[in-house]
C-alpha cells in the first residue's frame, strides 16, 4: 500500500512536482500517467527514497519515506527509469547481488534467483555477462533484480520502454500476476493504451499536478470522452502550466 500526500519537489527554479496525492492499494495496479516532464519520475523517486520531498509526505505500508526510509525501502522493489546493470557480472550474478543486499537468506538465494529467472524467461542468457545485452534483455534482468526479494510493493518507472511486442506482453502478464498475488503495483507510462489495458486506477499528472485520479471508466465519464486517448489529452488540458 503506497500513500502519497501532497508532495512538492523543486530542482532549483524548476518546480517539478507541485502537490501530488494519490493512493495505490494492495492487490491493484495503479498507473501513473502523464506526458514527458510531467513529474512522474520525480514522484516515483521520492517513493523509492532517492529524493526527499520539499513538503508533503509519502509512506509505504505505513513507513514514512523520509523519516523511516530504510523500512520503506524494505517494502519495495523499484525499477528506476533506464536502470543499468553491471556489465562484468552475469545476469544471474546481477540478480543475486541485489538479493543479497536485500537481505535474502543465503540458503534461499539460489532458489529465488532460479524462480525469477524462470518467471521472466531469462534462462537463455542468465549465465552470460550482461555486457552487450539488448534493451529488452537488460530490462528483464533489471526487473528480475528488483523483484527477487518478493517485495510487497512494486514501483516501475516506464518499464515497457524499449521492449518489443513479445516482451511487453510478458511484462503485462507479470504485472497481472503480481496483482493476483495481492501486491501493490505502481507503474508509470506515457502510453495511454498500455495503462488502460492494465490498470485498475489511473492517476494522470501534468505540470507536476494531478489532473485526474480515477478508474478507467470514471475517467471516460468525467472527461466525456469515449476514446481513451482523447480522454487523456482532455484531462491534461485541465491543468494549467502555472
Amino acid at each position: 500500500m503506497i500513500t502519497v500526500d501532497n508532495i512538492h519537489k523543486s530542482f532549483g527554479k524548476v518546480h517539478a512536482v507541485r502537490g501530488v496525492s494519490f493512493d495505490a492499494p494492495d492487490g491493484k495496479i495503479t498507473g501513473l500517467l502523464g506526458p514527458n516532464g510531467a513529474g512522474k519520475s520525480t514522484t516515483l523517486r521520492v517513493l523509492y527514497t532517492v529524493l526527499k520531498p520539499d513538503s508533503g509526505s509519502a509512506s509505504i505500508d505505513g513507513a514514512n519515506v523520509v523519516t523511516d526510509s530504510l523500512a520503506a525501502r524494505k517494502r519495495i522493489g523499484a525499477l528506476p527509469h533506464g536502470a543499468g546493470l553491471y556489465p562484468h557480472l552475469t545476469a544471474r550474478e546481477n540478480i543475486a547481488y541485489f538479493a543479497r543486499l536485500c537481505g535474502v537468506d543465503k540458503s534461499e538465494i539460489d532458489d529465488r534467483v532460479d524462480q525469477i529467472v524462470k518467471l521472466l524467461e531469462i534462462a537463455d542468457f542468465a549465465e552470460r555477462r550482461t555486457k552487450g545485452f539488448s534493451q529488452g534483455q537488460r530490462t528483464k534482468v533489471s526487473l528480475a533484480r528488483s523483484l527477487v526479494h518478493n517485495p510487497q510493493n512494486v514501483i516501475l518507472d516506464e518499464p515497457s520502454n524499449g521492449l518489443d511486442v513479445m516482451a511487453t506482453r510478458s511484462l503485462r502478464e507479470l504485472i497481472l500476476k503480481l496483482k493476483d498475488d495481492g501486491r501493490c503495483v505502481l507503474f508509470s507510462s506515457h502510453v495511454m493504451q498500455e495503462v488502460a489495458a492494465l490498470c485498475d486506477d489511473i492517476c494522470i499528472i501534468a505540470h507536476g499536478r494531478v489532473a485526474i485520479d480515477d478508474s478507467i471508466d470514471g475517467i471516460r465519464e468525467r472527461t466525456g470522452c469515449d476514446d481513451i486517448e482523447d480522454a487523456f489529452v482532455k484531462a491534461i488540458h485541465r491543468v494549467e502550466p502555472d
Partner: protein
Amino acid sequence: MGTLFTVFLKEVLDNFRDRRTLGSALLMGPIFGPVLFAFVINLSIERSFESAESTLELPVIGQEHAPNLVSFLHSQNIDAIDGPEDTAAAMEAVKAGTHDVVLVIPAEFGEQLAAMVPARVELVSDQANSDAERDARRARNALRAYQQLLTGTRVVARGINPRALQPINIDEVDVSTPSGRSAMLLGMMSYFFVFAALMGGMYLAIDTTAGERERGSLEPLLSLPVTRDQLIYGKIAATCLFMTLSLMLSLTAFYFSLKFMPLEQLGMTPNFGPDVVLAALAIFLPFILVGAALMTLVASFTKSYREAQTWLSVVLIAPTMPILIVSILTLRPRTEFMFVPSLSQHLLLVDMVKNEPINGLHVAISVTSTLLIGVVLTWVCARLYRREGLLG
C-alpha cells in the same frame, strides 16, 4: 557488516573481471615504474663507464706541429686521428655533428713553446651539446694535464720546487655511506609506490560514484534496503584492497629489479632486502586509506567517468608534490613533516634505504596522523554519498 562485505566482494569480483582496467591498475602502475627506473639507471651507469674506459678518437689538425703533445694524449687514452682540413672545416664538422670535438694545433705552436709565450691551440666543440661536452671535457683535461707537466719541467729547470705552485692542498672527506648515496637516487622509489598504489584503486574510486551513475546502476542500488554508509564503506574497502595489491606488486617488482641494477658500480648498496620491503609496505598501508578516500571524494563531485579521470590525474600528482619539494630542497626529516601523508612515508622509506636508525616517534606520528586523515576523508565521502545531488 554483512552488507558491507557483500558490496566489497561484488566490487572485487567485478574489478577482477575487467581485464583492461585490471591491466592498467595492476600491471602498468607497479611494473612500469621499476622497469623504467632500471632502464634509466643501467643506461646512465653504462654510459659513464663506457666514456671513461674507452679510447677517445680525437681528430687533431696539425699533428706534425706537436708530436710530443700527440704522444702525451696517447698516454691519456686519447688517439689522435686525421681531422678536417682547417679550423673553418672543423667548425663546420662539429656543427654538423660529424665530430664531437676537434683539436687544432697551429704551425707556430712549436715556436711559441720554445719562446715561452703561451702557445695557442684551439678546441672546437659545441658546448650546448651535453653529450659531446663529455668528450670535450676529456680533451680539455688532457690538455691541462699536459700544461701542468710542462709547467713542472720549466719550474724545475729554474731550480724551484714545483710544490711551490700548489700553496693549498684540498682534501675532501666524504661522509656519505654507500647506502646513503643510494638514498638520493632510490628516494625516487616513493613516487613510484605512491603512484602505483593510487593507480591500483583509481578505477574503483571513480566507479563508486561517477561510474555507477553513468551506467545507470546507482539509482537501483540506492533504492535497496541498505544504508548508503554500508555501500560506500564496502566500495572504499574494495578500492583499498586493489591499491594494496598494486603497492605490493610495485614493491616486489622493485625488489627484483634492483638486483639487476649494477648499483655497486655507482658506489651504492641500497638497503632494500625483504625486511625493508615488508616494513615499507607496513608504513605505506595507512596512506592507502587516504588515497582511496581522496580519490573517491574527488570523483564524487564529477559528472562523468571521463571528467573523473581528468580530475584524478591531478590527484595522482598531489601526493607526490611534498616529496618533490622536500627532495629539491634536500630537507632533513623533521618531526612536523611526519604529519603529512605521503611525505612522512617517503622520508621513513629514505631512512630505511639509507640503513639509518628509524625514529620510533616519527613512525608513530606518521601512522597515526595518516590513518586519522584517512578516516576523516572516508567519513566526508560517506556524508557526501548521502546527498541528493549524487544522482546528478
